[in-house]
């Protein structure tokens, strides 16, 4: 059941951040259902052959949410679960942002926002050029969309009708210091993607069935943007929708409460 896996991922995120005493808990918890649905019911990837040429490509453009990605990769068998305890420790493979040179299942070394979608466009073009047919999925933060590079990539993907490319926006309406709409407004966001030549689907980003349906819907002959409405900090009452939890670390007592809420 995806719901059980997602709960395990969230618990893993809390424990991983607790061990490291660092991380981006709010965005990790908001993106968890998107990552879980992709890795456990959509992506054609194989932990035993992480570089097989025809694999689907997944890029976490909001690379600061590495703890969520590492947790999913661990549960999916790409890295040992015990290794999560080394997150951000000296000489660990698990750097604060993902590194494809070290971690199987990682396609791009993200961290500076606004890099994932251009790489995704290249990957989608490569799939078509080589005739291989893999699909490419890129997860973006909503604040991240303030970077112009995303719109250069969106324009290119629309122009080339890259129907093997899917961008997922983790629309939690918060960025690092404030709400997106109070900082540099993104709305009307769906209209923007549509006007760039994308098929646009808006849904509840915590609804696994809706996510799965959107990821697997038949091609509309153009790239697909999924605006996944989410709650930053989803699942932990005192973290949900609070800007100060972008990269705050829960205290020992808060970790206990968070894990309790996430086991319900």
């Amino acid at each position, binding site marked *: 059941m995806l719901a059980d896996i997602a709960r395990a991922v969230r618990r893993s995120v809390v424990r991983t951040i607790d061990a490291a005493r660092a991380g981006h808990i709010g965005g990790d918890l908001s993106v968890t259902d998107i990552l879980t649905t992709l890795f456990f019911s959509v992506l054609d990837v194989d932990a035993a052959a992480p570089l097989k040429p025809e694999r689907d490509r997944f890029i976490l453009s909001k690379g600061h949410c590495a703890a969520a990605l590492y947790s999913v990769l661990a549960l999916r068998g790409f890295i040992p679960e015990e290794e999560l305890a080394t997150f951000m*420790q*000296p000489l660990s493979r698990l750097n604060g*942002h993902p590194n494809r040179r070290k971690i199987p299942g990682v396609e791009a070394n993200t961290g*500076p926002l*606004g890099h994932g979608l251009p790489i995704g466009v290249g990957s989608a073009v490569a799939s078509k050029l080589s005739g291989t047919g893999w699909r490419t999925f890129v997860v973006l933060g909503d*604040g991240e969309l303030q*970077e112009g590079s995303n719109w250069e990539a969106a324009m290119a993907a629309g122009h080339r009708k890259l129907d093997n490319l899917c961008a997922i926006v983790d629309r939690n309406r918060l960025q690092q*210091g404030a709400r997106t709409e109070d900082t540099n407004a993104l709305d009307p966001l769906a209209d923007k993607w549509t006007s760039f030549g994308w098929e646009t689907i808006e849904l509840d980003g915590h609804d696994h069935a809706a996510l799965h349906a959107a990821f697997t819907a038949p091609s509309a002959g153009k790239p697909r943007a999924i605006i996944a409405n989410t709650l930053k900090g989803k699942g932990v009452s005192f973290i949900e929708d609070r800007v100060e939890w972008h990269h705050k670390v829960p205290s020992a007592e808060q970790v206990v409460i968070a894990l309790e809420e996430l086991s319900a």
Partner: protein
Amino acid sequence: MNAPAASLATAPAKAESFDCRQAFADELMTIAKADPRIVAVCNDSVGSSNLNAFQKAFPDRLINVGIAEQNMVGVAAGLANGGFVPFVCCASPFLTGRALEQIKADVAYNNYHVVLCGMSPGMSYGELGPTHHSIEDLSWLRAITDLSIVVPADPNQTRAAVRWAVDSGLPSFLRIGRFKVPSVSTEGDAFAYGRVDRIRDGSDVTLVATGVMVSRALAAAELLGARGISARVLNVSTIKPLDEAEIIAAARETRGIVTAEEAMVEGGLGAAVSQVVVRHAPVLMRLLGVRGFAPTGDTGFLLDHFGLNAEGIAAAALEIAG
């Protein structure tokens, strides 16, 4: 490049340490109260640049463009064109990496009075990894004509550098450290633009350092002193333009030079000093800095990993003057 030197005595006890961000924010507030031309431009970085008080006091004069660094620097150039003095406050890797062409064309080539403030530079973001390490900034920016590069080594120097940046009217880059360091300057005469400060005299070898490495060079001089080696220490707080006379004097009066910077050795302080030395008074040099993409680790761990500590600097000096 781990620091060897087990034979060296340990560094002296740590003095009280400060990071430069608060001094930067306080001085900017003080100047902004008296000078309505001062505006801050940032990229969702109000908190990380310590601009909360500025935002509260001058909500209209804080222009947060969101996560959009290229736009941020272009907007700053336009504000300068309109008579304002923009302080662009942004994490140094994204300011200098993402917006490099805007820095070159919009700021330097236009010769607009924009103050680019590289926050949390060098290895400040330790375990966040190489994407967040701002270690290429000195190399990149040194290659840009008409852009002054200032690296304060402590809070006193930071405050004085902020005042200079307003008064000078020049496009400049201020590298504002986050790693806590002890004071290395005196309040009355903390910083003079274009001057290299000889903060310890010596005759055998010269240690040339910038930013967070200055206090570590002083500690290295102590270690060398215990071995009977007299080390001169230079604090380079203006990397560009460089005070050539003080570098030439070091090359002539001591046996060689060790440079230390929290940055790539390809093109930063060490390269700048080398360019002077080879023209005027060739001597042996050792260039200490970052080499390659760092492994995972916090700031202190990574500085040690690259030998950027008292023991590493002293060991390099011993190769020249031992």
